[in-house]
């Protein structure tokens, strides 16, 4: 459903991605693994239109989206949970959620305010709190809830477990597992190998801006050589 081919991208003069190609398939979860600085976040930012693609192509459901603005990409149905979560500090939890809910009214069976608060009851207790009064775990829940309220066709998460306590990691894992069982396609960038491979169907490994390994979650779990070589696990 998302096809990236031969992508070159980076920051100004600094090129980070060198002909990176990767595909996310409908109804499946793709994990993008790789060491720090490999170019995972850069890939996601380029998909979202936050960075320009210098070469290559990005297609979403067959339609070219390289060169499109983040606004158009969000409208096309891709929701993004960035590494830094990017909760709006001047907005309350409720306002953060409403911002998405008002803009993407859901079709039948879509995500509503009640449904995301069912998924993350903790947020329901913090509705009038400012975005920055939340703990790291609550911020991550809010970032995911906000993304779901966009009723996306593809959910992209950049290191959702980074800096979170094990109990919260477990909670996020279970919630994402629910989403996966509902058939929501996802791309998850992760450092936490166990977390990623337990959620993912497909796995790719990025190194120095290129895909160096492609396979299934079971295959990467079995391939200790690749783990050692590319991930330092």
């Amino acid at each position, binding site marked *: 459903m998302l096809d990236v081919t031969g992508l070159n991208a980076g920051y100004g003069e600094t090129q980070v991605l060198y002909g990176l190609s990767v595909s996310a398939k409908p109804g499946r979860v793709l994990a993008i693994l790789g060491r720090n600085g490999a170019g995972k976040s850069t890939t996601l930012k380029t998909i979202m239109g936050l960075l320009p693609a210098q070469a290559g192509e990005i297609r979403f459901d067959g339609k070219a989206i390289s060169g499109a603005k983040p606004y158009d990409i969000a*409208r096309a149905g891709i929701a993004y949970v*960035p590494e830094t979560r990017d909760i*709006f500090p*001047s907005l309350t939890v409720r306002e953060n959620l409403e911002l998405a809910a008002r*803009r993407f009214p859901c079709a039948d069976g879509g995500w509503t305010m009640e449904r995301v608060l069912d998924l993350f009851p903790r947020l329901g207790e913090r509705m009038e709190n400012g975005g920055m009064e939340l703990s790291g775990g609550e911020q991550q829940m809010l970032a995911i809830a906000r993304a779901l309220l966009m009723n996306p066709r593809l959910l992209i998460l950049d290191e959702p477990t980074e800096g979170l306590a094990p109990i919260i990691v477990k909670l996020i894992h279970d919630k994402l597992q629910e989403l996966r069982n509902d058939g929501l396609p996802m791309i998850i960038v992760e450092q936490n190998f166990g977390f990623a491979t337990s959620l993912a169907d497909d796995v790719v490994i990025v190194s120095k801006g290129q895909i160096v390994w492609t396979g299934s979650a079971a295959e990467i779990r079995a391939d200790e050589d690749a783990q050692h070589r590319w991930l330092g696990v």
Partner: protein
Amino acid sequence: MTHDLGFWTLQTLNALQLSMLLFLLSIGLTVIFGLMHFVNLAHGALYALGAYFAATIASTAGFWVALLVAPLGVAVVGMALYGGLISRMRKSGPMAQVLVTFGLIFVLLDLSRIFWGDLALAINTPAALSGRVDIMGTGYPAYRLFIIALGVAIFAALALILSRTQIGAMIRAGVDNDAMAACMGINVERLFFIVFCVGCALAGLAGAVAAPLLSVTPGMGLEILIPTLIVIVIGGLGSLKGAIAGSLIYGFVQTFGAVLLPGVASILIYALLAAVLLLKPVGLFPAKG
């Protein structure tokens, strides 16, 4: 004289009136900066344009029509500036923006010279507001009270819009993090455009209400620019609270400085600015904490 209640009342009202005028100017500039990271030095020139529009319209259609139409006229000029210049310069960095909008001041200044000449224009206060109102034994010009009331009303309206409405939440989100706002499907470019036009209209409104108090001259835009910049630097960029706080501080320091410490009045506000920059370089109430 400083023991006289009338003196304090009068000066307080003068200070408030100056503050409200500065508020109308600085709110647009500061929110445009906060949201778009765009330094529009020509904001003061738009204020002058508002005064000229008001003077011209008032001479045929009367003050009240002028007060309504002049800000709209300035907003239209703002739209043209946005489409022709500013949207192209969004990514070109502060130095280029400062230079271009600084140049724009002189373009607009010369254009107003060509259209309206070098002589100062005058505009009468509307009949309904030409009298004085008795406040605690002091007769105070009704028109100046009107400016204070207008400033307070605009402040209240903006505060309500920013804190209670969806577009207000979108603006706050955009000031916080425009990239993430765009990733959530907010048309940030359109939001910029709307905010820019409203900011221009408010600058035009400030010019229109100031016109009966001052003589309308081509240089009035340049004169108001420095005070406006001081207001937003003291108040902190991007926030309504900063704009109102900065305006009040400027208005009171300037007004009371001039009557109580005439010797140092002219440097007082700069000393305050320096102190703020040293102690709290981001200003008192910046939008980004």
